[in-house]
C-alpha cells in the first residue's frame, strides 16, 4: 500500500454566524456557532482519487478549503507527507480546480498569462521563453491548441475554460490537486470530456486527487475511495466498489438509493422522508437519527464512534 500524501486528523471548523454585536445585545441573544466540519479524519494515498460526497451543507467544500490552506482549522490538523502537522508544503505543490470556470479565470488576462502565473509566482522557469514553451505543452496536454494561448477566456466554452483551469493547476507541477465540483457547471457531454481528461492526466502524471462532488455517479466514475459526509461529519469511508455494492451506513444507502438511475426505468420508490437539518442546531447524538430507519435510543444520546469505516450505533451493535 502506498504512503499517504495527506493525513487529516480530527479536523473541525466552526463558523461564527452571530448577528452584529448591537443587535445581539438588544435582542439579548448569545453568539451562534455553526459546526461546518466536526471531527473529520481520513488519509489520501499517493496516486489515488479520494472523493468526498454529501448533500449541500455537509461541509465537503469546507474540508477542501482547509486541506489547501485557504481556511484555517478550528481544531485538528492537516499533515502532508514528510512534514510536521500543520506545516505547509512547498508553494505550488497543491493546486485547486474550482466549480465555475466562468468565475475562476481572470477575464482581462490572456490564457497564456493565466497559465503562466503560477510558475511566475513560485519562481519556476524564470526564463520567459522556457515558460512560454511550457504553456504550449500544457495547452496541448489538456487538449487545446498552443494558438489558444493568445485568446481571452470569454472566447472559450465552459468545457474549454475548465481545460484552461486544469492547465493552470498543472503549471506549478503539483502532485496533489483538490477538485471542488469540477464538472457540476458543465453539460453531460462536456462533463464526460473533462472527467476522461482528469483520469488520463492522473495516469500519465501520477497525480493524487481530492475530489469533491454531490453527484454520486460522477464520484463512482472517478474515485478509488469515498468518504460520505452528513452535517459536517464523516459517516462512512469505503473503497469505491465496496461502497456502491454494499453500502453500510443508513445515510449512504439512502443517498445511493435516491439517485435516479438510467437502468431503472419507471421505478416507483418509497423515498426517505425529511430533509437535512440546520447545522446551526444539529440533532443530538448521531445527527442522522431523525431520518434513520434503524434508529435506537442510544443514537439520540451518543455520537457513534468511527469503527471499520462506519459511524453507526446500529451497525456496531450487530457486529
Amino acid at each position, binding site marked *: 500500500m502506498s504512503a499517504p500524501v495527506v493525513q487529516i486528523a480530527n479536523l473541525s471548523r466552526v463558523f461564527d454566524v452571530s448577528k452584529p454585536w448591537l443587535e445581539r445585545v438588544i435582542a439579548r441573544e448569545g453568539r451562534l456557532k455553526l459546526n461546518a466540519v466536526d471531527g473529520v479524519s481520513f488519509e489520501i494515498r499517493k496516486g489515488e482519487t479520494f472523493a468526498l460526497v454529501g448533500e449541500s451543507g455537509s461541509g465537503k467544500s469546507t474540508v477542501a478549503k482547509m486541506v489547501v490552506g485557504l481556511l484555517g482549522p478550528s481544531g485538528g490538523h492537516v499533515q502532508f507527507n514528510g512534514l510536521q502537522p500543520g506545516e505547509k508544503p512547498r508553494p505550488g505543490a497543491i493546486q485547486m480546480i474550482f466549480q465555475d470556470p466562468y468565475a475562476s479565470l481572470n477575464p482581462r488576462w490572456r490564457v497564456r498569462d493565466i497559465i503562466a502565473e503560477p510558475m511566475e509566482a513560485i519562481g519556476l522557469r524564470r526564463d520567459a521563453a522556457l515558460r512560454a514553451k511550457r504553456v504550449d505543452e500544457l495547452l496541448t496536454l489538456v487538449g487545446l491548441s498552443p494558438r489558444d494561448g493568445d485568446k481571452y477566456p470569454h472566447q472559450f466554452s465552459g468545457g474549454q475554460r475548465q481545460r484552461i483551469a486544469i492547465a493552470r493547476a498543472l503549471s506549478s507541477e503539483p502532485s496533489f490537486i483538490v477538485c471542488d465540483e469540477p464538472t457540476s457547471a458543465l453539460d453531460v457531454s462536456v462533463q464526460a470530456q473533462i472527467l476522461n481528461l482528469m483520469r488520463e492526466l492522473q495516469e500519465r502524471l501520477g497525480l493524487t486527487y481530492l475530489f469533491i462532488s454531490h453527484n454520486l455517479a460522477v464520484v463512482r466514475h472517478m474515485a478509488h475511495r469515498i468518504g460520505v459526509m452528513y452535517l459536517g461529519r464523516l459517516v462512512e469511508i469505503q473503497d469505491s466498489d465496496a461502497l456502491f455494492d454494499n453500502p453500510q451506513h443508513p445515510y449512504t444507502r439512502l443517498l445511493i438509493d435516491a439517485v435516479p438511475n*438510467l437502468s431503472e426505468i419507471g421505478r416507483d420508490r418509497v423515498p426517505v422522508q425529511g430533509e437535512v437539518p440546520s447545522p446551526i442546531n444539529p440533532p443530538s447524538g448521531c445527527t442522522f437519527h431523525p431520518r434513520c430507519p434503524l434508529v435506537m435510543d442510544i443514537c439520540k444520546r451518543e455520537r457513534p464512534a468511527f469503527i471499520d469505516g462506519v459511524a453507526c450505533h446500529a451497525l456496531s451493535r450487530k457486529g
Partner: protein
Amino acid sequence: MAEPAVLEVKGLTLEFATRHGTLRALDDISFSIRRGEVLGVVGESGAGKSLTGSAIIGLVERPGRITGGEIRLKGERIDNLPPDRMRAIRGRRIGMIFQDPLTSLNPVFRIGDQLIETIQTHTGMGQAEARQRAIALLTEVGIPAPENRIDAYPHEFSGGMRQRVVIALALSVEPDLVIADEPTTALDVSVQAQIITLLKRLCRTRGTSVMLITHDMGVIAETADRVAVMYAGRIVEIGPVKDVIKHPQHPYASGLMGAIPALDTRLNRLTQISGSMPRLDAIPAGCAFAPRCTKAIDRCRSERPDLMPAGASEAACWLVGKVSAEASA
C-alpha cells in the same frame, strides 16, 4: 384513439430578431402529449427545452416571436390567442413548476394567500371554501401541519417544502397540463427523490399530463413515459423512454447516454462527444450535429434530416436506416 391529444405542437418555429440577423432558436418542433402522459424533454443548456415550455404558455419575451407552426390544447389553438384569453388558460388549464421555488413564490405574501388567490381567480370559490381547498392541497403534497403552515411565508420553508407548495399551486385548479421546468435541479438528491415521487403520484391519480423539462436523464428515466431529445433548437429523437435510453437511434442521443456515468458499473472511459453545441448564430447547414458526429456522411452536411421512424422511436438522422441495419446484423 378518438380523444384528441392534450397538447399538440406542430412545426413550432421561434425566432429572435437581433441586430446581427434573425436567430432561429426553435426549428420545426412537433410533438404531442396524451392525457395522463409524462413527456420528458432533455437536452444540454441552450438546446431550446425551456423555450419550448415558454412558447406553449405564451410567455416568450420580445424580441422572441413564434414565426411558424401551431400549438393546440385539447384541439383548441392557443398560440395566437390575445393576451387576456391566454392569461385565463395559464394557471387554469396549464400549470407551471419552475426550477427555483423561491422565485416562483411571492416572498411578501403568506403561502396560503397565494394559494387562495389562485383558486379564487380561476374557480370563483368563496374565501372560506378556497382556504379549505388550500389546506387539503397542502396535505396532499405532504406539508406537515398544514392548518398552521398555511399562514407562513415562503422564507419559513426549506427548499423541498417550497417546491411542494409550488406543486400545490400548479395543481390547485386541476389543470390539463403541467409544465415542469427543471423542478428538482435546485434540490439535494434525497429531496429530489421525494419531489419526483410526489409529482408522479399526483399526476397519475388526477390524469394530469406533464411536460418534464430537465437536463438529468436519470430523472427522465424514472418519471417519463416518452422522451424528446433536443439539440440546437430541434428534436433529434423522440420515443418511449425505454427505447430511447436502451437503444438510442440518433448518434447524439447515443453519445449522450454513453456520456452519463452510471451508478452500477465503473467504466474506464465515458463516451465522449467532442466539441460543444453550436451557438445559435453559427448553426451549420444540414444536420446541426454533423460537425461533432463521428458517422457523418456528405448528405448530413448539406441536407437537414427530419424526424423519421426508427425502431420504436423517431429520429432525425440520415443514418437511421443504416444504424438499425448494423445493429441487427
